[in-house]
């Protein structure tokens, strides 16, 4: 180990620990994946779209499925740290709280990104999707949108872990705040899939949302972690 641990080195170590735990247990990925699969199947019972229609609704369906699945994974992020008072130990250590937050956020980002990579082919198969707009734009939207969901979600999971009935608390506080991000990701995806409108406004909005809420989360994480 290097002599003076920096924010980044602590983040990296904490992230490596989270990834190793996930690699061995596969708790988050498995539950998320199965949950998302169920949502996709149930949606396809609810709607029976033609190729043209599915282009218009797939953006909404996809992101709603991802959102629900993300909540499933986020709920497990911090509960893991409650066992054996790991979180209390972290609070006592001189390590910067932002490192903990960043590592958790990046870990969740990777989990959700993997989930999306597995889910998008399913959507293409089940809904007969073919994008009219360029696919690289979809990748940019996915990268920005996933960060928007995960950065807020990780923060609010840390909030809701302190409450009674924490599992239900997370969506109750995450969904209202995320409404503009959801609107942006759904509309950007739909614009690209149908090729009707330009998605650039929505992509910019997502980028602004990401920057603003990453900053606010990093700023407010310390008081939340140390709240008595």
């Amino acid at each position, binding site marked *: 180990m290097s002599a003076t641990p920096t924010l980044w080195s602590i983040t990296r170590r904490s992230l490596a620990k989270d990834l190793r735990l996930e690699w061995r247990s596969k708790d988050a990925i498995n539950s998320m994946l199965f949950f998302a699969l169920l949502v996709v199947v149930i949606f396809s019972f609810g709607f029976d779209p033609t190729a043209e229609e599915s282009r218009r609704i797939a953006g909404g369906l996809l992101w709603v499925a991802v959102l629900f699945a993300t909540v499933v994974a986020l709920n497990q992020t911090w509960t893991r740290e409650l066992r054996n008072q790991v979180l209390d130990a972290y609070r006592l250590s001189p390590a910067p709280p932002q490192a903990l937050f960043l590592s958790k956020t990046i870990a969740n980002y990777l989990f959700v990104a993997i989930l999306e990579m597995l889910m998008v082919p399913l959507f293409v198969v089940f809904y007969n999707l073919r994008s009219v707009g360029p696919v690289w734009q979809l990748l940019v939207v996915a990268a920005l949108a996933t960060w928007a969901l995960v950065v*807020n979600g990780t*923060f609010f999971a840390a*909030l*809701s872990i*302190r*409450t*009674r*009935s924490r599992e239900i*608390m997370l969506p*109750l*506080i995450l*969904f*209202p*705040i995320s*409404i*503009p991000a959801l*609107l*942006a990701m759904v*509309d950007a995806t739909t614009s690209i899939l149908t090729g009707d*409108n330009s998605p650039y*406004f*929505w992509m910019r*909005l997502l980028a*602004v*949302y990401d920057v*603003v*809420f990453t900053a*606010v989360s990093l700023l*407010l994480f310390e*008081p*939340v972690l140390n*709240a*008595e």
Partner: protein
Amino acid sequence: MKKLYQALSVLTALLLLYGFCQAWYIAPTEATMGNVQRIFYYHLPSAWVAFLLFFVNFLASVWYLVRRTDGADALALASAEVGVSFCTIVLLTGPIWARPIWGIWWTWDARLTSTLVLWLIYVSYLVLRHYATGGQVPVLAAALGIFGFVDVPIVYMAIRWFRTQHPQPVIGGGQGSGLDHTMWVAVLWNLAAFAMLALMFVWARYRQALAEHALEEAHIAGYDEARGEAR
């Protein structure tokens, strides 16, 4: 303090009464909408007061995180609760007006949608306060209060773009442009009355939250004392 509160309560009641007279008897009947338009004198003041209270909530939340005073937390709680109540009035009076004028109760128009989202955000704030336990409530609530307020401009931008892109079934809803002088007078009197009403509610709730907190502390102190004697 109590005398002042009572005096201001009486003043508020008089203002509300006068505002009522202004809205129902003095302001002229609107040419096309008729008497239904009079709900506007309650709708607009409630909206302004609600938005103001959400701003107060934001300031109190920041203040709490900086200084950690009980007063800031009590003010944040009081302003959020009263703000949600006034925002509820806005969301209820809107559809009552819209039904006869637009022919529909609700439309996903920019202003309606952003007010609804604002309401949802602050209801979730109150839900968090209700479910969180112990001394950490103020910190968690203050964090969410700041998140909520930072979200407001983004919500507004997103929804405006969302609505201007799509064709609208109903256009407008803004009466602000061509308001008659007497109508303005009625609006302003009611705004003063509603602002006073909100102030009285916030004040009462603020004092109550502080008293609640003091009572809790006294319980803990009493418990510690009793335990000390038992030893």
